[in-house]
């Protein structure tokens, strides 16, 4: 295809960085023992932050090389690999926006680990950098096998992050997380093998044009959805998420909620709609029902939680319900809203997990009851927390609103009951978020340990402030994103219409 392989560079830069860290570590392992360990830990983290920041710069370069007015995949790199399989990368507006979310959140995650991770720091940053490569790879791969490799391989570093650096019950959580996602992926693998054999190619662009027979589509669709539903997650396969979040370290939660969940929505848009349009149309009411249940059910469950992280995890499931609703509305407004909701949720839920992390690092508890009255000691923290609380309840002017209203408007055109059910979630989200805020931040300080709690430090500022800025920016000027995702949305919908 010629030209500079910007996507490959961007994808494998973190992996190369991880190798570098590993080599340096191996070289200095003998020399550094006692007094320099704390310093070397910071040095390793700083190196990782720089590598991931460089990756972000690479993604920005890709953004500028990307022509927003053109349809189809761009910046394509393709090399023959084996038979129907090739190494093929490329982006459209949908994948590029998710890539940028990934590269934006990863440095923040690494930085957020500054004070909270103190064991096996080298292994930790290696796991994170490897994870970043796999996450980017999922979004830029244009070949089924390549996609599957990235999709599955990403499980391993995430599994390790939860299982090694996690909380008390990390092994159970990691096991649950792995089991759920693996079973979903195995079904998807079987379907992929069938598709490659039937179409004679693993190339997305070939598969998009290949019309599978309707009855075949049904089975393929189910197999793919099994995987995406777990990732998103959709009710009733969401129960791994609260446990994984609660046990994961702060940065793990941020990346889990911010990026990994989005792979589910991305998969639906990349595979389910364009490749299995008849099956998608057939299952629309089914998906709407699951979306509405997810929104109402998990919102109510979120309200009853006593653990801050669990509450936000359940809230994530509810917010992903809007994504499902928008995608399966099969119209421009719904799909654009769903993409926007994914990006917005990446920022907001990421920020909320960071917000929880700030007090967790100080108090080492996530119990809501242990807090209360933080506002009198941490006014800046309280302000940021308020902003993201409001963003999470979808207050207009924040990015949370735009995604919710568009998915509902799109959903309304397909099924009024689905939009009405989703709108109920708008009420409940206010209930659980305001209750959480009130119990942790407002009121008198009752726990004497909170008397000396310090407000946000510089590192926390650097992590949270950019998320706050983007949450407001995209809330006021969401067209910045719509302009990017517009042509890919149109393309997905026309592929879908062409298939029916």
């Amino acid at each position, binding site marked *: 295809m010629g030209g500079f392989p910007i996507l490959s560079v961007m994808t494998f830069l973190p992996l190369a960085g991880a190798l570098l860290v590993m080599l340096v570590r191996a070289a200095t392992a003998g020399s550094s023992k006692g007094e320099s360990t704390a310093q070397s830990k910071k040095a390793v983290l700083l190196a990782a932050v720089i590598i991931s920041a460089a990756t972000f710069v690479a993604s920005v370069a890709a953004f500028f090389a990307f022509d927003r007015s053109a349809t189809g995949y761009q910046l394509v790199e393709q090399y023959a690999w084996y038979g129907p399989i090739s190494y093929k990368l490329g982006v459209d507006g949908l994948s590029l926006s998710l890539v940028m979310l990934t590269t934006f959140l990863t440095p923040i995650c690494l930085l957020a680990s500054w004070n909270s991770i103190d064991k096996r720091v080298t292994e930790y940053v290696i796991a994170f950098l490897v994870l970043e490569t796999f996450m980017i790879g999922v979004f830029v791969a244009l070949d089924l096998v390549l996609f599957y490799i990235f999709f599955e391989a990403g499980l391993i570093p995430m599994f390790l992050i939860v299982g090694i650096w996690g909380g008390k019950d990390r092994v159970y959580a990691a*096991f*649950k997380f792995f*089991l*759920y996602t693996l079973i979903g992926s195995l079904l998807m693998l079987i379907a992929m093998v069938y598709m490659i054999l039937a179409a004679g190619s693993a190339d997305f662009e070939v598969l998009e044009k290949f019309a599978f027979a309707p009855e075949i589509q049904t089975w393929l669709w189910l197999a793919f959805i099994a995987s995406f539903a777990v990732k998103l997650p959709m009710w009733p*396969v969401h*129960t*791994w998420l*609260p446990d994984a979040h609660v046990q994961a370290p702060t940065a793990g939660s941020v990346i889990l909620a911010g990026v990994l969940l989005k792979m589910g929505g991305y998969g639906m848009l990349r595979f389910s709609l364009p490749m299995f349009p008849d099956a998608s149309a057939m299952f*629309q*009411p*089914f998906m709407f*029902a699951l979306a509405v*249940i997810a929104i109402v*059910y998990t919102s*109510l*469950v979120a*309200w*009853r*939680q006593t653990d801050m992280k669990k509450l936000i995890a359940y809230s994530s499931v509810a917010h992903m319900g809007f994504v499902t609703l928008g995608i399966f509305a099969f*119209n*421009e*407004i719904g799909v*654009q809203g769903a993409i926007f909701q994914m990006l917005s949720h990446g920022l907001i839920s990421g920020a909320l997990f960071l917000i929880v992390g700030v007090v967790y690092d100080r108090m080492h508890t996530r119990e809501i009851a242990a807090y209360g*009255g933080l506002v009198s000691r941490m006014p800046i923290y309280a302000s940021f927390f308020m902003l993201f609380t*409001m963003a999470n309840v979808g*207050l*207009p*002017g924040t990015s949370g*609103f*735009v995604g919710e*209203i*568009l998915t*509902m*408007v799109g959903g*309304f*055109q397909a*099924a*009024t*009951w689905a*939009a*009405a059910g989703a*709108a*109920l979630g*708008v*009420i*409940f989200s*206010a*209930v659980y978020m*305001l*209750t959480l805020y*009130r119990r942790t*931040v*407002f*009121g*008198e300080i009752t726990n004497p340990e909170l008397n000396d709690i310090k407000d946000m430090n510089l590192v926390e500022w650097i992590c949270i402030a950019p998320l706050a800025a983007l949450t407001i920016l995209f809330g*006021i*000027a*969401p*067209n910045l994103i*719509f302009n990017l995702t517009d042509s890919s949305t149109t393309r997905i919908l026309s592929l879908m219409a062409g298939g029916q």
Partner: protein
Amino acid sequence: MLPDSLLIYIVLAPGFAALTGVFHKWIGDRVVMAITTGVVLSCGALSLYQLFAYVAGLGGATEAVHHASGYDAYLTAGAEAAAVELKQRVITLMPWIHVGDFQANWAIRVDTLSIVMMAVITGVSGLVHLYSWGYMSEDPHKSRFFAYLSLFTFMMLMLVVADNFIQLFFGWEGVGLASYLLIGFWYTKKAPNDASIKAFVTNRVGDFGLALGIMAVFFMFRSVEFGPVLDAIRTNAVITPYAFAEALPARESVIVFFGERVYALELIGILLFIGAMGKSAQFFLHVWLPDAMEGPTPVSALIHAATMVTAGVYLVCLLSPIYEYTFYASGMVALVGAVTALYAATVGMAQNDIKRVIAYSTCSQLGYMFFAAGVGAYEAAMFHLFTHAFFKALLFLGAGSVIHGMHHEQDMRRMGGLAKFMPLTYAAMMIGTIAIIGLGIPHTKFGFSGFFSKDAILESSYAGVMASVSFAQLAFWFGLVAAFLTSFYSWRLIYMTFHGPAPHEAHGHDAHAHDAHGHDAHAHDDHAHDVHGHGHDHKPHESPLVMLIPLALLSLGAMFAGVYFYDAFVDAKNETFWAGAIYRAAENHVLHDRHNVPEWVLWAPLVVTIAGFLIATFTYSFNRGIGARVAASGGPLHALFSNKWYFDEIYQATLVRGSAFLGNIFWKADKKIIDGIGPDGMAKLASMSSRGLSRMHTGYLYHYAFVIIGAVIVFGAILWLRSGGAG
């Protein structure tokens, strides 16, 4: 109209002023207070100038036209040949959400409605800012308070100048946020926290309807902008909704909602009105407003009396083209408004907290505005909104002055005889009371502002009765009884507070046990003890000048706003004044026909008002014990009223408990059922025994609940598929 630059200044400057609150650490409280107050006062001056200039520019020549040819021609010719062209200017600031047909901009729409609202909002807000210099002088969080006030002002302005439903929704939820923050301003205390969440959530219930209404609008009209949507209804243009092959005229169009075919305008009207009910505290969704009195009193005056709570009325008037062509939706507006007017007045009679009396009074007056709009007298509704803003802000700020003077005492039973301690506040409260009861002489121009607007509403309602408008009969009679009750509870307030013996001279104010204002160690309550260097002297005192000036200016409004603006809003010049911003269908003549109502209709409000005054005088002035004895005897009616008809208890027992119950069941279902079948179950599968099977037969409630919910969903999905999947 003002030039674009000044209009943009009026709308945006309060928002930027609010941002200075972020920097209060560096620039200090005084600077934040000065900037916010200065900016909002300047906006108020500009907006009021704009309103006065606009009214002055109408000239006096229109009267003849109105009563002769022009007006009647307008009535008979229908909308297509409207004699008055819609005078409107839209300044587009920048695009907001553009996806397909969904086009929403950040914009400033200037027409008569927004000119009136801008004047009300910035005028009252400027005075409230000023007043707060005195009222909040001892509070440690002054910057935050002023920033919130300015934020509110900005959001409210964004609401009223929106040219599309989405920006309106932005302002709508934005004022909800400001209201939430200000109700819970004293955030270390329980009661304000509870009240703020209750307000936000109740409003969200309304917003649920509003959001669905907006979705339905977009579904039918393929636009969220007021211009195209309302024009289509005005001209009955053929519209092509999203899921219809056939095109239909706007007024007859049908939508399939939950599988039912209903008239689109009816559905839209009802859904949007649910939003209005939440924001304007109408029956069923009113429960948050009395609790909102936990906020500082200037907030109650600005947000929970003069401006935010009137947003629902504004919405209905703005969307008059929709309500003009509905039967059920406008009937619902009239019915809910009438019921609220009466309901809130009954509760207001039995409250002892001075702010709660005024809060219920607000609720009741909003009911008047709604039933006016419901019977088709939108101009009268807007007129009452306008005059009410003055006298209700006056009453609240007066009450604030009393509370301030009484060292944060709010219970009227502990007040009395204050007239001699605070004569200026007393005068202001008297003016406010005379204005709210609507004292004036029919057929003349002698009357306080409430007289002109309330009588216009009652007369229009009676004209509606003559024209057989649905629920007009109910509205008129409920409104008349409420007028009687209004007079009674208003005078009761005056007598209990300002007249008679002064119990506060007998014992210190520490004796009271009002739990919401319990004397825990907090700056706000320190205020109550230490202010003004009184030390242990708890004698009531008159408020400082900075609080009295706003009272004086609002008193002018309460006295003269009615007579001055009467012609423009509802009488001779109203066609040219509104200039199409409010729309009336060809067959709606209620505002005009109110001049043809029987003579007794004009005098009835005066009679009931005097009756209310006499009874209040008898029970609370001549025989001060009677009211207390009625309360003590605990008759069922009094119990019903003083407990607000038990709404809070009923909602708590059903909605709140029910949701919590469901939440707990679902949570257990996650653990026991989904995990039990899923990962945990799989782990057990390896060592499955007969014990595993018996787990299926556990008699747990949540198992069954879960199965039932699942069955409902499956059943619903099947039904949906069978109905062809549409709607």
